[in-house]
Each structure stands twice: as C-alpha cells, then as structure tokens.
C-alpha cells in the first residue's frame, strides 16, 4: 500500500503545501492507473473502490463532526436520500446519465440536510441525539415508501461492466476532490471560523461569526457529498435497498471512521476509512461474530487513550523518533 502512505505524507503539516500538493497529485495519478498496471481482480477493485467512497463519506462527515464539533449519528439519511434519488433517475424513462443522477442525488441530500436546520440550535450530545432521530425517521419513511424505494426488496440498477470499471475512477475522483476540499476548508477563513464555533459558539458570535449560517452551509455541503457518495455506492453494487443505505450501522460507520483516524483532522478520516474497510472485510470473512464488538473496543480505547486516533498516534510516534535521533547527538558533548 504505497498509495495511502504517500497521501499521508502529503497531509503532513510540516511539509510545504507545494510538496504536499505534488505528492497528492502523484498518488491520485498512480491510483488511477493502478487497476490496469497491477491487473486488479474484481475483489481488489471492489475493496479499493469501497475505500474511496468511504474516504469521501468520512471526510464529509468530518466537516460537521470534526471541524464544527457537531457529531452526527444520522448521516445515513443523506447517504440513502442521495442513493435513492440517483437510482430513481437512472431507472426513469428515458434514464438519466449516471453522473447527472449522482449530482442531483447529492443536491437532494443537501436540500434534505437543510431540513435539519432547527436541530442546529442544539449542541453537543443533544444535537447527536436529534440526529439519531433524523436517521431513524428517514430509514422508516423510505422503507415503507415502497413505490419509491422498492421497499425491503430494493431496486436493481442498470449498471454494465464498463460502467463498473469507470466507477473506480469516478470514486477516486470524488475522494480526491473531497480530500482537496477538506484541506482547503481547513486552511481557509471558513475553517478557522468553524473551529471557533466548535470551541465557543457564543464567543464566536461576539466577534462577528454567523454560527447559524456556517453550520447550515457546512451541514448541507456535508450531506450533499455524502449523498453523492451514496449514489456512487449504489451504482457500483448495481443494487440499492433501504436497510443497507439507511441502517443505523451506516451512520455509526461514518463516526467510527473519523474517530479511528482522528476527528477534526484531514488525514484522520482518510486513514480511518482505510482501516475500517480493510478490517471490516477481514472480520466479516474470518470472525463475523466479533465484528461489531471489536469496533466497540477500538472506539473505547481510542477515546480513552488517543482522542486524535491514528493521527495522534502517528504524531506521537514522530515526536518519539525525533527525540531518539536528537539524543545521541546531545549526549557525547
């Protein structure tokens, strides 16, 4: 896995943005040609595509959950809305071209997120609890709205083999765009205001930050991107079903990926999504009975000992290495 390692280097704060950008472009280019050069089988391609999609979803979740510090347990709602709107458009007569369908699905999910506006008055755990309600309400509505979603039996999507191959590139493109957007948001004056809102919403308002507007916009953007991700996800597996799209474990997955990797960082959710996808694949195949329990233990350990997740762990390791390198030079003198 040279790709993620290089991408990790690209996000490292000590590096110049120029070097980071070059490394990032290089990684994306390598990943784009990887399936042809390395002759990916279907299994590998499935996992890597899924990883790209989960990276996009985790990073978009992190805009709200990490930058603003409003932890959502309801992002499955946007994932599902984006997925089903895209699916219906692809199944309509005449069928919409997939990219248009994904885009409109994302817009629908973004609009749906605006419905959460009243919830943005709540902060911290109260907001989180409200988002559980949002996710569950969406799940129930779409499960019983059989005319639209096909109910529990779901909908099959007309995705042929060529489109499936191209979806690898679409997913890579989405992930790359979301990584770049996350970095830009974090560095921009919007990012700094989001962090101010996270720290103290009233103090932020007292120096001119419009907290409501920022949260509305970020939640809608986050929802829209997760919606596009849902559309690509459903298309790649050429099947969509409410239980899979709207399930509570789907919402939990977004939280888990960000927390495993490091909430509020850009690198974190990328790492977290990779670990999540690989671990999930391994656990489902080998120890399906341990699957959820292990995530629970992981979550407890991270929150107790390393709240910045893998990112915090890497930073700690880096500091330790630097100290070790500095010591031999200091002691002979």
């Amino acid at each position: 896995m040279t790709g993620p390692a290089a991408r990790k280097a690209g996000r490292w704060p000590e590096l110049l943005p120029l070097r980071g950008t070059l490394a990032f472009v290089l990684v994306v280019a390598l990943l784009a040609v990887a399936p042809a050069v390395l002759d990916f089988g279907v299994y590998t391609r499935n996992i890597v595509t899924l990883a790209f999609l989960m990276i996009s979803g985790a990073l978009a979740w992190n805009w709200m959950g990490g930058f603003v510090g409003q932890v959502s347990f309801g992002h499955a709602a946007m994932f599902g809305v984006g997925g089903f709107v895209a699916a219906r458009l692809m199944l309509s007569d005449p069928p919409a071209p997939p990219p248009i369908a994904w885009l409109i699905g994302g817009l629908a999910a973004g609009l749906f997120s605006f419905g959460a506006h009243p919830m943005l008055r709540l902060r911290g755990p109260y907001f989180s609890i409200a988002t559980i309600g949002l996710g569950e309400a969406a799940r129930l509505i779409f499960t019983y709205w059989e005319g639209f979603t096909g109910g529990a039996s779901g909908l099959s999507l007309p995705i042929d083999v060529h489109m499936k191959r191209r979806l690898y590139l679409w997913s890579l493109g989405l992930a790359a765009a979301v990584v770049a957007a996350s970095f830009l948001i974090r560095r921009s004056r919007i990012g700094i205001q989001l962090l101010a809102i996270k720290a103290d919403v009233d103090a932020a308002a007292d120096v001119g930050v419009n907290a409501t507007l920022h949260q509305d916009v970020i939640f809608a953007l986050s929802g829209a991107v997760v919606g596009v991700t849902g559309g690509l996800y459903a298309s790649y597996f050429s099947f969509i079903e409410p239980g899979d799209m709207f399930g509570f474990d789907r919402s939990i997955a977004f939280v888990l990926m960000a927390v495993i990797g490091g909430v509020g960082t850009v690198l974190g959710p990328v790492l977290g999504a990779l670990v999540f996808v690989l671990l999930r694949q391994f656990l489902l195949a080998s120890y399906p009975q341990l699957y959820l329990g292990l995530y629970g233990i992981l979550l407890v350990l991270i929150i107790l000992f390393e709240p910045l997740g893998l990112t915090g762990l890497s930073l700690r390791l880096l500091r330790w290495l630097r100290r070790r390198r500095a010591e031999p030079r200091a002691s002979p003198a």
Partner: protein
Amino acid sequence: MAALLATRALSRHFGGLRAVDGVDLELGEGEILGVIGPNGAGKTTLFSLIAGSLRPTSGEVFLSGWPISGRPAHRVVRAGVVRTHQIVRPFPNLTVAENVTVGAIHGSPRAPGSPRERAAEIVSFVGLSERAGELPGTLTLAGRKRLELARALATAPRVLMLDEVVAGVNPSEAMTLAGLIRRIRDERGVSIVMIEHVMPAVMSLSDRVVVLDHGKKIAEGTPAEVSREPAVIEAYLGKDHG
C-alpha cells in the same frame, strides 16, 4: 451632535428581577465612558443587551442614530460594536494569531488589508507577537486578557465594550493594560465603554462615569463629580445610620 452609541430606556427583566431598568446612556465619539456599580448592579447585562447576546425587554440601542437593538450578536459586531468578556473566552483550539484572525475576518469591510495581516498588526499592538504561534492555554491570565482585547479590536470596532479587563491581574500588569486601553482610544480612535471594579484605573481612564445600582442609573458625570455623589457613596458603602 448625535452620540455615537446611545441607549434609550433600555430594560431587561428576568421574571420579577429588573436586571437593567430603563437605562439611558450616551457615548460620544472618541470618549472613554466608565460604568461602575456594586456587584449585581446590571453592568454585564447592560453589555449583553447592547452587544446583542441578550434581547432587551424594552428600550432601544442606537449606533450613530441607527437602531441596532434586536439584531443578533454577529450583526452588531459588523455594525461596529464589540464586547470582551469578564471571564476571558479564547478559542483554546486556535493559536493566538488565529484567535485574532477570527475577529479580523469580520472587520475587513471597514479596515484595509487581509484578515491575517491585520491580525498580525493587532497581535503586535497588544504585545503578543512573540506568542503568536502558541495556544492561548500557554498564556498567563494577563496574556489572555490582551488576547481577548486583540480579538475584539480585530473586528475594527467603532465602539469597544470592555468588561473588567484590568481586574484580577497584578498591579504592574494592570498599569500596562490601562495604558493599552488608553492607546486604543488615542492611536486607533476607538470609543470605549468600560466596566471596571479597579477604581484607580476607571477613574484615571474615563472621561465620564455612569453609576448603576439595582439596574438603574443613579449617577453620571466626571470621575470627580461622581465620587462625591451621596447616592454613589451610599450604594457602595451603605447608608450612614450613625
């Protein structure tokens, strides 16, 4: 000439408690106005009403004759009125420079330069340049008070409302902070309303002083006039029963 900032019969009731009760206040351009009064007199509530963090029960606030009461806090800041907090509230997850930049973003329509440049200038104005890259948690209380000042100042205010900036630091720091407040008015032309318990500071800095007690304005005038006022002495020391 119309006052820069004025309140008309401004009131805020919490249930039966009249925290601020019909207060008329006027701040002239380039003036430093002290607000004093015993604990619980309604000074901080008055600031919250002007700053938009609390809605008045009745009465109005005007900036250059324009009503600004009822607007949310972030829009009052954009109009040019900003407050600091008695208990400093830095953003602990942002560096000193970033803290000030958050304020500078919203001052940009009134002041030249990018938010980052203006923030750097203000950080050096309050004497925190050497700590610009550090987190607020590493600063002393006096340092965090400077940061609180800088962040508010970065919004390029016309009126700066200071809630006990001098209180709680050692005497030499208090002198420096008082000097800084004077420089904000003299060098940057910002008009100031300050709540202060440290009497030497408020009496030497203020052009005029307003005294609040139980939510009402009980006296107003130059520092010398006010300190002779029987009602003020009574509010602070109690009635002479002897």
